[in-house]
């Protein structure tokens, strides 16, 4: 059964949440989702026939994220001045996130590698199964499971250790 335009619109919020936690930058996350939607619109007659539109959109977003990561690795990361202000605000975590546990979790996510963070968000936040996460990321299920296990242990250690570090994205 083909999808309608309303189905595409329903997925925007989920894509934005996932992209925001994945990119840790609201502007870049919205740009990523926008690129994903534009690509979906370009291929709409074909995409309307896919079985699982949500999984297809997340897979498209993952591919765009990987492409952007590779480009930024080649060119270097450009931080606009607005984001520099946001980075400065991270020094005062209480003002940003009233809940300390959530702040720790946010920092712990930032310390994860992109692949581990992606798997944790796909399964823990977006509710995909292991098979679906494997299809979205293009990895075997075993790889997804191992990344999930490492990520959860790392997050637990980070929260228990209560070490507040400046978020620094690890190399993939």
């Amino acid at each position, binding site marked *: 059964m083909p999808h309608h*335009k*309303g189905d*595409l*619109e329903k997925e*925007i*919020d989920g894509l*934005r*949440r*996932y992209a*925001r*936690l994945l990119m840790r930058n*609201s502007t870049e996350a*919205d740009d990523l*989702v*926008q690129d994903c*939607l534009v690509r979906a*619109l370009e291929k*709409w007659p074909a995409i309307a026939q896919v079985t699982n539109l949500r999984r297809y959109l997340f897979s498209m977003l993952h591919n765009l994220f990987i492409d952007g990561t590779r480009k930024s690795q080649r060119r270097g990361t450009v931080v606009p001045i607005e984001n520099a202000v946001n980075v400065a605000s991270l020094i005062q975590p209480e003002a940003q*996130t009233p*809940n300390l*546990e*959530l702040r720790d*979790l*946010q920092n712990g996510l930032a310390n994860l590698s992109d692949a581990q963070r992606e798997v*944790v*968000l796909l*399964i*823990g*936040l977006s509710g995909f*199964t*292991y098979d679906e996460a494997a299809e979205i990321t293009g990895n075997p299920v075993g790889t997804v*499971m191992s990344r*999930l*296990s490492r990520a*959860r242990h790392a*997050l*637990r250690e980070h929260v228990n250790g209560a070490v507040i570090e400046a978020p620094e994205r690890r190399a993939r």
Partner: protein
Amino acid sequence: MKRWADNVTAILPERLLHAYVDVLLPAAKRRAVHRALMRQPELRETVEVWRKQNADLRRLALMETPGPMPVAMAGVTHRLETRLCRFAPLEGLRIAAVIALLLSGVAGTALLAQAQLDKDNTLISFGQTAAGGNQAITKPIPTKPQLAEPVAQKPKVENVVATVESAAEDQEKQTDVTSNKGGALAEQGELPEMREAAPETPAPAASEQPHSAPPVVEDSKPAEPPREI
């Protein structure tokens, strides 16, 4: 025979714990893992931490998500509608073109059949007129040999034979006349030397020398007698 749930040992595989946390296990396995976790508080604590991580991730996502949707994203539906509406007339035109082609084909076939049945059809008469005009145009123009005088017919073999025979008869008559003339002169004594030669001179064949002058005239001259020294 022991069931799978009874085989869950004290050390649970970690993948089962993750699947239990993410609610991806069937009901039977889920109950078995739950029972096993009741006997292992360490594992139960780990499972609770992971569950809390998932819940905190959702809370964090809700906190991170800004309220209003960007204008560019909000226009996705409008752009999609515009895109679909832009192609909708083309779809209609395509269908109309196909229908028009089918109708024209049917009409053409019907007209052709009617024209074949009706001999006085306009198309046929027009075709005949056109064919007549074409014939008039393509009528051969008289060529130069036809305008010239007709070539004389070749003489037939009988005519040639008759001509040759008549010529031979004329030659014979002429020879007879000449011989008779020479004979008369010889009889008159004007040609004494030829009196003997004349009968010996054979008459030339009419077919061999039909137009040659009779040698009788030269022979009729008297030969000069040898002069005496």
